[in-house]
């Protein structure tokens, strides 16, 4: 997995969906009724939740690191023009070429043209949420360029003709048996087939992916990535990952194209000391992720000879214009807020209808894309306002505050900035948005346990120091009714592996 930069797309699920996406409540209801999905999600989110709390508790100065992270990001955002120009200078001085893309179409056109100029018709990609947001793979495909996703989870998603459902673990909704089936039936049509006797052991599945992807890495001439951080002072880009596919994409090809949101800047080299401590612990609950790559422009004889950086706006400056909502741009995409969210745990990532699922998606998507569509208008309601997301957020984004702000915006209308220009939003009354909002409210009301626990926690959690987590998570799981064990095939798997414990080995 690649931490925080990413996520590839299924064919229909990027940016503005071409097919109308159902509003959150409908999509969530479908997910809640899917026992396999719920089982997978519950297992995954609970596992990572406890591990994260332990990793965070190791650092006595977590609160100070969190505060420094918040302030660094806020300072950067308040001077974003200055730092963008500084970054451009330092990347250029180091041998990189900087491009600016105001929206998704422009970014896609820039990347497609750069790939075509190399004469190549395929690229290897390391998971990047920004490229998923803009629908880059589909745009390249339309130009006859094939983009291969190389994260294991992204591969699962791409082969399964599916959509990612989690920032960090996009295939969190798939269990091992499903993954084996996807590999067995689909790998052959994309390249090296999976072995005939492939089982559902994770190590075997990983080996199949290793062999399948290696042939693509070794011949790749163009790599496409995102980045977790860009250092304005030095022009350094940072990619944080686990599998090594990021290193493959960043070092083996002759040309590297990185598409990065303008909010990913930090001012100085030293700022990395904060985020390299908070990001791995918040996301994968590790002291440090297996691989982190840092590069500054190009280096003679080591890595790509040509480096392009595409700086992406695509709604970020509109978000920046909102005094309350702009804090969402501090996000470092760790996904901790997803893993503690009771709504996400039940509804799953797909219900959010966006590349950004969970609590962060509920505040980011409606700002990046506006609240004109039914799904975007309903997203601010995809929360019980319990505050667990705020408590775990390593840059202290007050997600409940932004949610309430955006709800007001949907219901009452008001001024906003879209594509750089001021617009006045009409109140939602009589609009699709209002109906969506009402349905969202009904969803909460038909799950009274959720609402009650959420409300009770709302008053309590704010006092908790982040290190005391997973207090809210535990309280939630203690108070809600556990659903009965679902029928096949989840129960089969569950019994065979002693509740997932044996299956780990």
């Amino acid at each position, binding site marked *: 997995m690649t931490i925080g930069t990413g996520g590839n797309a299924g064919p229909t699920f990027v940016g503005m969906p071409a097919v109308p996406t159902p509003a959150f409540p409908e999509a969530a209801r479908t997910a809640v009724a899917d026992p396999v999905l719920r089982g997978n999600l519950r*297992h995954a989110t609970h596992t*990572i939740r406890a591990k994260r709390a332990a990793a965070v508790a190791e650092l*006595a*100065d977590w609160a*100070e690191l969190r*505060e*420094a992270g918040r*302030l660094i990001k806020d*300072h950067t955002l*308040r001077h*974003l*023009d200055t730092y*963008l120009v500084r970054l*451009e200078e330092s990347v250029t001085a*180091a041998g990189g070429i900087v491009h*600016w893309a*105001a929206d998704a179409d422009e970014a896609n056109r820039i990347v497609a043209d750069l790939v075509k100029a190399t004469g190549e018709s395929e690229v290897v990609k390391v998971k990047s949420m920004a490229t998923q947001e803009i629908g880059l793979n589909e745009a390249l495909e339309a130009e006859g360029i094939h983009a291969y996703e*190389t*994260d*294991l*989870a992204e591969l*699962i998603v791409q082969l399964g003709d599916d959509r990612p459902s989690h920032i960090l*673990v996009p295939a*969190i909704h798939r269990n091992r048996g499903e*993954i084996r089936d996807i590999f067995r039936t689909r790998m052959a049509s994309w390249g090296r087939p999976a072995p005939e006797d492939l089982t559902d052991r994770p*190590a075997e599945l*990983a080996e199949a992916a*290793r062999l399948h992807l290696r042939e693509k890495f070794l*011949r790749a001439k163009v790599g496409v990535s995102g980045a977790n951080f860009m*250092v304005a002072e030095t022009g350094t880009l940072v990619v944080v990952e*686990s*599998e*090594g596919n990021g*290193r493959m994409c*960043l*070092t083996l090809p002759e040309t590297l194209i990185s598409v990065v949101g*303008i909010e990913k800047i930090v001012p100085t*080299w030293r*700022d*990395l*000391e904060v985020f*390299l401590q908070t990001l791995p612990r918040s996301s994968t609950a*590790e*002291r*440090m*992720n*297996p*691989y*982190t790559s*840092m*590069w500054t422009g190009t*280096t003679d*004889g*080591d890595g790509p000879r040509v480096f392009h950086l595409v700086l992406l*706006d695509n709604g970020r400056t509109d978000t*920046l*214009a909102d005094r309350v909502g702009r804090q969402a741009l501090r996000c470092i995409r760790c996904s901790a807020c997803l893993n503690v969210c009771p709504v996400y745990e039940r509804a799953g990532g797909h219900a959010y209808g966006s590349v950004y699922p969970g609590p962060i998606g509920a505040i980011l998507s409606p700002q990046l894309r506006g609240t004109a569509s039914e799904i975007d208008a309903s997203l601010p309601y995809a929360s019980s306002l319990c505050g667990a997301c705020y408590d775990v957020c390593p840059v202290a984004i007050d997600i409940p505050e932004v949610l309430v702000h955006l709800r007001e915006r949907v219901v009452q209308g008001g001024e906003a*900035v879209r594509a*750089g220009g001021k617009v006045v939003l009409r109140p939602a009354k009589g609009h699709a948005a209002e109906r969506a909002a009402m349905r969202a409210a009904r969803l909460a009301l038909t799950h009274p346990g959720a609402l009650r626990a959420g409300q009770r926690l709302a008053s309590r959690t704010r006092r908790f120091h982040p290190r005391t987590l997973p207090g809210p998570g535990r309280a939630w799981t203690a108070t809600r009714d556990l659903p009965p064990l679902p029928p096949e095939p989840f129960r089969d798997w569950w019994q065979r592996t002693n509740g997932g414990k044996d*299956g780990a080995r």
Partner: protein
Amino acid sequence: MSGPVNSRDRILGRVRRALADVREEPGGELPYADAVPRAYLREHGDRTPAETVDLLAANLADYRARVHRCTEDDLPSLLARLLREHGSASLLVPPGLEPGWLAETDVERVEDRAESTPYDLDRVDSVLTGCAVAVAETGTLVLDGGPDQGRRRITLVPDHHICVVRVPEQVVSSVPRALDRLSPGRPLTWISGPSATSDIELDRVEGVHGPRTLEVVLLG
């Protein structure tokens, strides 16, 4: 960049308009050093150099790197043994590796040349490097492309990586201390345990694309 106003100017203009309220605030222009007080620790805990090395060893092992300790005199025989045990017939060597380290092994030495393709590297069994710095609190090795480490790709494609860390001098306690020692101008690779994934039901599985076996020799 297109149209009468190019996108660079358009984006920078949007940023400036978006921040109009910030610009009007009194004190909105705090200098960077004052805007970000750094109350966090430079390192966690108070350790002797020997204890820091012990912590490095423990954290490396916790993320399933294989850790060995030896003296300068014993290094050649240890390296010979590790290569033998891994069944390696060939070894990638960066240009500036100390030749004496390989005095007791007869594996085929493969030099990384500018014209070496990824396919060439894929045929080599193991790679041996030094490192730039190691971080005890996180169990991390950092390579900076120095002469005893070589290009980034050589520690990526082969399936077995042996990394020699000079202790205690190359070991720092924490991430902040490591960044102090590193130069951003060099391509850096931070390695914490072997390649891994948790993408299948969040179970950690070693070995997806990077070396599946990471051996660390603490030399001192």
